[in-house]
């Protein structure tokens, strides 16, 4: 499952230990700090970002690995010698004709793998997108307005966090006979937004009492504009990290759902491959090439995101750059 991933975002939710917001950035190693309190990012700042990004080994390694998987997802189905529905001899081990062998039904495993990659990326992206949209909206509102509205929203957030989402999906899924990719992505988004909301709320809370926000308020800016133009840019890097983690955990969540047979009923994904392998006793038939590749690929996809995330953290946060 994906719990440890999101927990990283939850750690951030504690304002005492969050990343230093941009206004505190001091010049590092002679280069001037790029963006100052709410000001738009200048070309200078972008140069500084690139300077550190390209020299961060974790970030470069993570991105390169991720790019490899993305290319496989985009190009894979096009170069795969067989399509998803073609039949061959069942239970063939990997060979020149079938790069990853064939499954119980005689389908080509490589074709399933590259198509499954696509599905996993799409579901992950959709889940992360929905969760960040809802979570940011509610987090900004709760953090900015405070008071009763904040109490109510926090209560809702805490209640949804406590709902066991897998069980909820099982109950809903038991009644929905067909499920698509969009349903799965949106469902993941609807159950994981509280993590984003908590994090964004905590950040907004600490930022809204800063001087530059007071100044913006004095100058008569509308609240929506202050939130979007003054507060949001100051946690942009942090939000970016949260979204990356969500992307990874959405893919893992989707794999769990698919494994239980609750995933999309009309497409192949990495999780449905594992589900099929389990249902048709790939373990006892020793057809390891059916269930090992999807797991290894998914681990690689998510691990690459995590490593890139750590690298980005170091790039964004001067305190972590150090040696």
């Amino acid at each position, binding site marked *: *499952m994906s*719990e440890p991933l999101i927990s990283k975002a*939850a*750690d951030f939710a504690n304002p005492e230990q969050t990343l230093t917001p941009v206004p505190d950035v001091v010049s590092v190693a002679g280069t001037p700090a790029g963006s100052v309190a709410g000001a738009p990012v200048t070309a200078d700042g972008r140069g500084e970002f690139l300077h550190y990004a390209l020299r961060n080994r974790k970030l470069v390694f993570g991105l390169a690995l991720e790019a490899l998987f993305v290319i496989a997802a985009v190009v894979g189905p096009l170069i795969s010698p067989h399509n998803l529905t073609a039949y061959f001899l069942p239970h063939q081990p990997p060979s020149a004709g079938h790069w990853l062998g064939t499954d119980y039904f005689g389908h080509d495993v490589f074709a399933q793998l590259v198509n499954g990659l696509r599905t996993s990326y799409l579901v992950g992206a959709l889940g992360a997108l929905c969760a960040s949209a809802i979570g940011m909206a509610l987090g900004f509102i709760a953090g900015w307005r405070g008071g009763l509205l904040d109490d109510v929203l926090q209560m809702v957030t805490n209640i949804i966090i406590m*709902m066991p989402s897998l069980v909820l999906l099982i*109950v809903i899924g038991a009644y929905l006979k067909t499920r698509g990719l969009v349903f799965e992505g949106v469902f993941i988004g609807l159950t994981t937004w509280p993590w984003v909301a908590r994090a964004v709320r905590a950040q907004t809370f600490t930022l809204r009492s800063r001087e530059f926000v007071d100044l913006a308020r004095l100058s008569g800016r509308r609240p929506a504009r202050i939130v979007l133009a003054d507060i949001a840019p100051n946690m942009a890097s942090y939000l970016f990290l949260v979204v990356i983690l969500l992307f990874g955990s959405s893919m893992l969540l989707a794999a769990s759902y698919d494994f239980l047979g609750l995933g999309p009923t009309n497409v192949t994904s990495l999780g449905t491959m594992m589900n099929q392998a389990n249902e048709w006793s790939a373990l006892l038939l020793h057809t390891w090439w059916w269930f090992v590749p999807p797991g290894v690929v998914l681990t690689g996809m998510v691990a690459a995101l*995590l490593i890139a995330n750590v690298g980005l953290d170091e790039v964004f946060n001067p305190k972590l750059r150090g040696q």
Partner: protein
Amino acid sequence: MRRYFTRKVITYVLAFFVGATIDWGIPHLMPGDPVQIYLSNFDLQPSGYAPLYKTMSEAFGTSLPLWDQYLHFWDGLVHGSFGVSIYDFPNQVTTLIWQALPYTLALLVPAITLSYIAGNRLGALAARRKVLDNTVLPAGYIFQAMPYAWLALAAPYLFGVIWHVFPISGGYAEGLLPQFSWIFISSLFVHWLLPFLTVFLVSLGGWAIGMRNLVIYELESDSSRYLRALGAREGLVRRYAYRNASLPQLSGLALQLGVVIGGNIVAEIAFRYPGLGLLIYNAITSEDYFLLQGIFIFIIIGVLAANFIIDIVFVVVDPRTRLSMQGATA
């Protein structure tokens, strides 16, 4: 502290209310008439359909207005009655749940607590030693990124099918009857070990990484610098850093319970371990909605109870919650 607990208890009561309402609402608000769907299985003559439909809707109470059905649901809930299971027919849903519960708890409680304790220790150690850091961190990321379902396939394949060290499915050996004997208990233990280890391993990485980052952060904090300036030994500084870092980890544990339980369900299904997770699976495959509803309520109660326990632990661990009880504000 009273304020702290009042707030928590209100959240729990509301969460239970929302959970129970969802549990009731999903089947009732889904499109389609359940009695009609049920009767469509039987290939009935048109003349027999109408009276049977009438009898069935009265028997299941679907002819009542929705609010009345909702009140009936709560009435049953308060009296601990969830109806009769379809999958294991004459048995009550509650009987089945009580049978499965010990297995789930035996898997879940040690896995959560041991991985939390071991992960935190490992993370704190990694923050101290470069060598350990270079091994714990990458391993932690890989375990964090690993889809649980896959580990639950790969581990039994390796240990069960290839090396024949552990059995790959079931709660105890087939042919044994549950009894208090050495053979049964050892069989229980051998079957428990592999599912436990996989759940344990998957959660371990997350705790270790979280703790490592927190301890490093705490060691750089002003309070640690102050302690060092006073001439405190490095061991003492680290001990305080560890204690400070365990608070966010503990609240993280409370937040993740719902997800950990989800992972446990995957484990039980993959290993065919006879706990609540496998019961859920059987309920889905045999379309036993009463059983499904009952388990959902049970899991929500479990999550809320575990949250409450963590709240109490928080009062013990974090002096600030106790301070607010005495009127001082922290």
